[in-house]
Each structure stands twice: as C-alpha cells, then as structure tokens.
C-alpha cells in the first residue's frame, strides 16, 4: 500500500489516489528497476503493462525521498518523454513562434516540482499529479503560459462599461451550452473545435461573455445580488454583457459563413 497523500481539499479531506492507481502502484512496487524502466516507456494505454502517469509520479517521488537515484534516473527520462508528447499535442511546432522553447521551459519547470517536493511552499504539490495527472498537468501548462504573458493580451483588463448599440434581439449565444460537455459524435467534436477556435479569436471582452454565458451557462445578470452572473464576474451591467454577446454572435456568424 502506497503512503497516503497529505494534501487536503477545500473541505479538509485528504486527497486520495483513484483505486486503479493504488493498484498499479502496488504492482509496480513488487517489480525490479529493469521491468519498471521497460514499462515506463510504453505509450499504448491498451497494453496491459502500461504504467499510468500518476503511478510514475509516485514512483519517482518515492525514489527521491529514499535517495534512490538509480530508480529516478531509470524512470525520469521516460516520464519526461511522455510529458513532452502531451505538451506537443497542445503546443505543436508552428502553432507558436517559439513552441519548442515553451515546451522545454514547461518541462523544465515541471521537473523542478520533484526537486522542490516536500520543501517549504512546494510541499506535496505533486499530490495533485498522483490523483489526476492530465488535469493537473493541464493546469500547470495554462498557468505557465499565463505567467509568461503569452496570452496577456487576451486576459488584459476590460473596459468598465460598454454602451454599444448592437442588437439586443434574439441571441443564440445566450442559450445554454447543450452538447458542450459531451460531444456525442465525431462531427460535433470537430464543430466544437472549430467553434472554440472562432471564440478564441474574438476580442477579449466578447470572448469572456461568450464563454461565461454560452459555454459555462452562467446567466447574463440577475436581480438577486447574491447570484453569480457574467455581469458580476466581469464587473459590468447585464446590458453590457448582452451587447458583447450580440457583437460576438455577429462575428461568429460571419466566421461560419466564411467557413
């Protein structure tokens, strides 16, 4: 049985690894370094010997704690190679001018978490990666890009109010986001990808309004001041949100026509 995690959630409960990860760790703990090295390099999830990333994080952390450098050196290259592949899917060459450099920096910063593990502020942050590696790694990547200012223009401060005279009539973007969470067909997946790309290209204020109302499903505004709405989150009136949605709808319909 692997040592329990020590990170607590917002309700004060200890984080726990999924059962499948616990089982994979138990099996891995019985295996020798050569076997683990071979398994770490497997990339086919359907292979019965495939080692989940959560499990690899645990094995490397544990080896570092014990000062077992041969195991660290055996597993870390495969772990980094698999992480790099995940990064390349999101930050492909050609997608950005310095894609390769960004990937390397993210990977470098990520490897630092293992060195900082168990020390001051960074104590047990890797617990998150032992629970759900893909989600934690996604956060790490987005956080890196945000900090580096690669998307600073997108997240810049918004104008406080907007009295544009765009149409406030029927607005398709105020409809709740049916089909966003679960894309049933391949076609829907492709459409979602294209639509997200189009939304991504909207001006910042419109993009925020569209994602908050059209994708996340928040109300534009509410008479009840305790309700979280797009207006409260953006610090503007409901009318401003509606104006932004109307302008965005116009742009997105033009985009659709072009496509």
């Amino acid at each position, binding site marked *: 049985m692997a040592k329990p995690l020590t990170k607590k959630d917002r309700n004060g409960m200890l984080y726990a690894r999924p059962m499948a990860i616990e089982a994979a760790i138990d099996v891995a703990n019985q295996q020798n370094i050569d076997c683990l090295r071979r398994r770490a390099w497997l990339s086919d999830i359907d292979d019965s010997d495939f080692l989940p990333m959560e499990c690899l994080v645990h094995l490397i952390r544990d080896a570092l704690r014990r000062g077992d450098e041969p195991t660290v050196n055996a597993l870390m290259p495969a772990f980094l190679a*698999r992480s790099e592949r995940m990064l390349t899917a999101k930050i492909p060459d050609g997608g950005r001018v310095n894609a390769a450099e960004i990937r390397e920096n993210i990977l470098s910063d990520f490897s630092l978490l293992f060195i900082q593990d168990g020390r001051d502020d960074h104590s047990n*942050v890797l617990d998150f990666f032992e629970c759900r590696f893909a989600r934690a790694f996604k956060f790490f990547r987005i956080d890196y890009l945000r900090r580096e200012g690669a998307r600073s223009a997108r997240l810049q401060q918004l104008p406080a109010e907007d009295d544009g005279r765009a149409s406030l009539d029927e607005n398709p973007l105020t409809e709740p986001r049916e089909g966003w969470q679960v894309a049933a067909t391949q076609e829907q997946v492709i459409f979602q990808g294209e639509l997200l790309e189009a939304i991504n290209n909207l001006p910042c204020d419109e993009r925020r309004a569209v994602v908050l109302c059209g994708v*996340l499903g928040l109300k534009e505004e509410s008479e009840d001041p305790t309700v979280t709405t797009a207006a409260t989150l953006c610090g503007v009136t409901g009318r401003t949100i509606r104006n932004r949605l109307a302008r965005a709808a116009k742009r997105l319909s033009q985009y659709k026509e072009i496509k």
Partner: protein
Amino acid sequence: MTMNQTTPTTLLRDVLYEFSLAKAMPDAELLDEYVRRYPEHATILTDFAIEMVLDSSKDEIEGTAKPSELTVTPTVSRVMSRFQNQLFAVRSSGLPVAGRAPNLAAPVANPFAMLDRKAFRDLASGLRANNVFIAKLRDREIDPETMTDGFRHRVAEELKVPLDLVAAHFGARSEVRAGQYYKAEGKPTAAVKQSFQEAVLTSGLTEQQQQYLMGL
C-alpha cells in the same frame, strides 16, 4: 523571515489546482462554488475557467493518439540534465531533502555559478537590475536579513531554482569567485556585507530600477 509559512501565492495555487481537478471542464456551478468560497480570487478563477474551456478542444489525455515509439528527444535530454544538476545543487547545499539529514560539511552551492554571460545579462534584465547588482548577489555581498521575501522569491523564479537554494546561497559566507581576475598583489578577501538598501543605492541603478527592487 521564516520560510515555512504558507504564502498567499501557495494558497491561490492550491485553489487553482483544486479547481482544475474538480471537473474535466468547469461549468457554472463549479465556478459559482469557487467564487463564493474564494471571492478574493474571483477574477483569476474566471480567467482560468475561460482558459480551460478554450483549451479543451484537444485535451492531452495520454493514449488517445495512435501509439508510437517514445524516444529521448534533445529536449528531454537537456531537461534531464538540468534536473540532475539542480538535484545535485540542492543536495549539496546542505539543506534537508525529503527527510534526509542535512549535510553540514558540504559547501553551499552558488546558483549564479552556472550562468553564462548571456544568462547573467538576462537575469539582470529579468530582475530589472544591472550586472553590478547581480554580481553582488552572486558574490553574497548583501546581508540576507535585509532582503524581503518577495525579492528572494523573484530571484528564485528568475533563476528557476528552489527558494531554499537561493536562501542558502545568500545566507552563506561572502566569497570571491574562483577564476576571477584581480590587479592587487594579494588575492582580495570578501568584504562586510551591504544592506539590501545600500546595495540597491550603490549599484548605479536608475531610480525606476531602485523603486522596483525596493518594492518587491
């Protein structure tokens, strides 16, 4: 200036990790829950929710792509090398690593020692300082007790090394770099450390640079 406190940055980072792990993709309910619980982080939570949605067109779930051979790329090779160097630096810094007893006899590693000329200049620019000031940091000429936590965090961030390592470096005895040229007949000895404020004021920094550093 204790180093073991949970800083606001740490709390925010944990909140954002939790938020990211809670669901594959955030929704109104989740965002509402977190904004109510952490109203001070409402803006950044909203930004993150938006980023996560826009990022979700092709999620990085392993094994969904056609499996192909994994190799040690030049990137992996370089990262691995840096990882080993940093691990070595931390372990030889004499600070406890994950339950190990501190190695008190070991000299404190100098995280500035591995910087080449360009990296040195980049560090100066990243810290909005100049080479004179960075040389003082490198040679441990500044009294660490007079530095702010914010400054130490910025240096660690720019150097991409653990905060502990930076703190241990600043706290160690002043040194004159090996291989450093000098004109005097005898080898120069390390001088008494300057206060942080003194160092900022006597390094030829512009007023703007001084204000930035003092404000960290």
